[in-house]
């Protein structure tokens, strides 16, 4: 009943003329702009003898992409080129986020170090990297640092594991046989951990017994996949990159090749974003009240208990939301790949595919919608998380 009457008053308010007119005007204006653009687009297309629509996604692209996670060649379709670009974007974003988080946490903690030189160095790091334009950092890595690496014949070889030269970085490729058994093992471990967690909670509330879930989980996550792979007969083959002379030109074949464009992007994205994450981490740690630690101590918590149960959860509450925002920024910033020709969503699809097909409207629409979907998904997760961890105040 209450809801109904509230709805009625709001309806009444909206139907008042002074409120109705601006809203109707906005709707009218919005549709007029869309009509205006669509109409012009149609006329322009007709004048250029081009047909609109998304049919081109099924046709042969005819261009090659030098870095791809899935099979791709010139005879693949534009749709597949889109998929390659999307996967490359996600790949860069994944590694960027991974390294940015690690570096960011280290620098953030260093910012609070009592060691003067560490403290000042991390301050310089943060001020340096966050005040320089990202695209300048990408150019710097790509055009100066990675271009000054030795040539193929004089490659830097580090423990036969990492080979560095002008062509990029080479690392060994691990080829698993019967690899699905490892996945079974991991799935089984996760299930077991879930059950143990449930049991531990029960023991804690009913019998006041503490079970070291984390330590047990750590043990299991190593043990079970190992047992499973022994049972399933999993074997690992390591394929090392080899120096091959072809038509008088030296080249490394085999292994995994990380191209300079990819490296420059991952380096600059993670360094740039880590400066922002470091500031979040610092703020988060500072936000935990000193009294919280003292209260934990007075309750008889030992050092690791107070850190794990009191300090870190409260610091994370402050750290995680802005850091997720940084992850989102990193993913969007990975589109700067287009500036150095890394074939990501923007570089390969909005760059090469667009200039070949000339389908500017369709392609830019697809690319924008893809980034928008990623952004909205991440912010949905963030909102859900924020609600979950929000302080319940009475």
């Amino acid at each position, binding site marked *: 009943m209450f809801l109904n009457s509230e709805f009625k008053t709001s309806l009444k308010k909206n139907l008042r003329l002074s409120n109705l007119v601006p809203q109707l005007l906005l709707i009218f204006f919005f549709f007029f702009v869309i009509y205006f653009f669509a109409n012009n687009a149609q006329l322009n297309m007709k004048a250029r003898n081009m047909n609109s629509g998304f049919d081109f996604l099924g046709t042969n692209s005819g261009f090659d992409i030098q870095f791809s996670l899935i099979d791709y060649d010139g005879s693949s379709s534009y749709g597949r080129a889109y998929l390659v670009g999307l996967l490359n974007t996600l790949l860069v974003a994944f590694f960027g986020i991974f390294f940015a988080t690690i570096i960011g946490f280290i620098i953030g903690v260093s910012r609070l170090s*009592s*060691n003067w030189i560490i403290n000042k160095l991390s301050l310089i790091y943060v001020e340096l990297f966050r*005040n320089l*334009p990202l695209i300048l950092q990408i150019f710097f890595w790509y055009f100066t640092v990675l271009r000054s690496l030795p040539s193929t014949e004089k490659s830097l070889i580090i423990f036969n594991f990492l080979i560095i030269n002008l062509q990029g970085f080479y690392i060994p490729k691990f080829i698993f046989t019967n690899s699905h058994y490892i996945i079974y093992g991991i799935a089984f471990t996760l299930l077991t951990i879930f059950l143990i967690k449930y049991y531990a909670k029960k023991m804690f509330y009913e019998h006041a017994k503490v079970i070291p879930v984390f330590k047990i989980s750590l043990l299991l996550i190593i043990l079970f996949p190992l047992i499973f792979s022994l049972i399933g007969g999993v074997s690992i083959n390591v394929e090392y990159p080899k120096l091959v002379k072809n038509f008088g030109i030296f080249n490394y074949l085999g292994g995994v090749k990380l191209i300079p464009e990819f490296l420059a992007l991952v380096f600059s994205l993670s360094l740039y974003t880590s400066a922002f994450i470091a500031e979040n981490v610092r703020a988060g740690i500072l936000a935990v009240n000193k009294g919280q630690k003292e209260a934990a101590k007075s309750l008889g918590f030992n050092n690791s208990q107070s850190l794990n149960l009191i300090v870190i959860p409260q610091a994370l509450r402050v750290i995680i939301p802005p850091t997720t925002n940084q992850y989102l920024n990193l993913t969007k910033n990975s589109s700067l790949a*287009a500036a150095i020709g890394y074939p990501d969503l923007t570089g390969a699809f*909005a760059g090469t595919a*667009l200039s070949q097909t000339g389908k500017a409207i369709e392609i*830019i629409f697809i690319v924008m919608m893809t980034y928008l979907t990623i952004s909205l998904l991440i912010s949905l997760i963030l909102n859900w998380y924020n609600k979950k961890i929000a302080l319940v105040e009475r």
Partner: protein
Amino acid sequence: MNKENIKSWLKINLFSNWYNSIISLFVLIVILLIIPSFLDWAIFKATFIGKTKADCKTGGACWVFISVWFEKFIYGFYPDKELWRVNLAFIILILSVLSAFFVKPKIKPYILFFLVFIFPIIGFILIHGGFGLENVETRVWGGLSLTFMLTFFGIIFAFPLGVLLALGKRSELPVIKYFCIAFVEFWRGIPLITVLFAAAIMFPLLLPANFNVDKLLRVAIGLGIFESAYVAEVIRGGLQSLPKGQYEAAKSLGMSYWKMNFLIILPQAIKTVIPGLTNTFIALFKDTPLIILVGLLELLGMVNLAKSNSYWLGMAVEGYIFVGLIFWFFSYLLSRYTQSLEKKFSTERH
């Protein structure tokens, strides 16, 4: 500081325990190894005077590259004999901004009015031409002056739009509210590059065939709209921080919606979010080099062009350091200024 003080300072700050000592020593050694060789390259062995790459023989940095290309880095391809127009525009801008620090508070709004409404017209006429001045096409604009022009345009375009969007997001009228929310979320959800591509490549297809909008203008408006979404989010934060009583007091005085917002709510809300706004504008400043992707050459673009000039190959490091210093200087200066403002406001409140 006497000897004892230095000793205790070192003990506390560098060598408080064994692992701190190891870290400090290690870092000090690394710094002592890097800094001298860098200074050697950048200053002691560097060449500052000359006209060609051949003048750089000492093995250090070749700052000749910067001095030879300096005019291009600042003005792009703007015609030589018309440069005074760009200079004049920037002198007017700098003088009017500086004067805001020295005049009485009463006059400040007039300076703001001048900057937002009158200066853009004067600046545009000066730099673009008209009223007896020779026309200079936007094609030849470039360099650092273009970076500043875009940043300035972005700010005066994004700020009012951002304010309106922020108000719209809190509107009681559902159509306006959800339109503003969708608008802001859309622009915040896509990368700037796609906006620039859309402005440069897609937008002409959406206009009537005989209706040409200058590419730089399209890109600048794209940049402005993109930034306005971020401005809106910052201002919304300020609006949320205001107590409800402010709205109620304004309404009880019989103020209209616009009067309430412009006289009571916004002045307070904007004041609290000045740091956030400056950060947004720093981000805008740092984002302008992206226009290189649609073929417009501001400072970074000009350096990129110069370093691939066949007479000046291998000058990338010097060029990027030059660009980095300029961008870093302005970003750092602004963020420092913001921090001092933040401190000033926080002491005022307590």
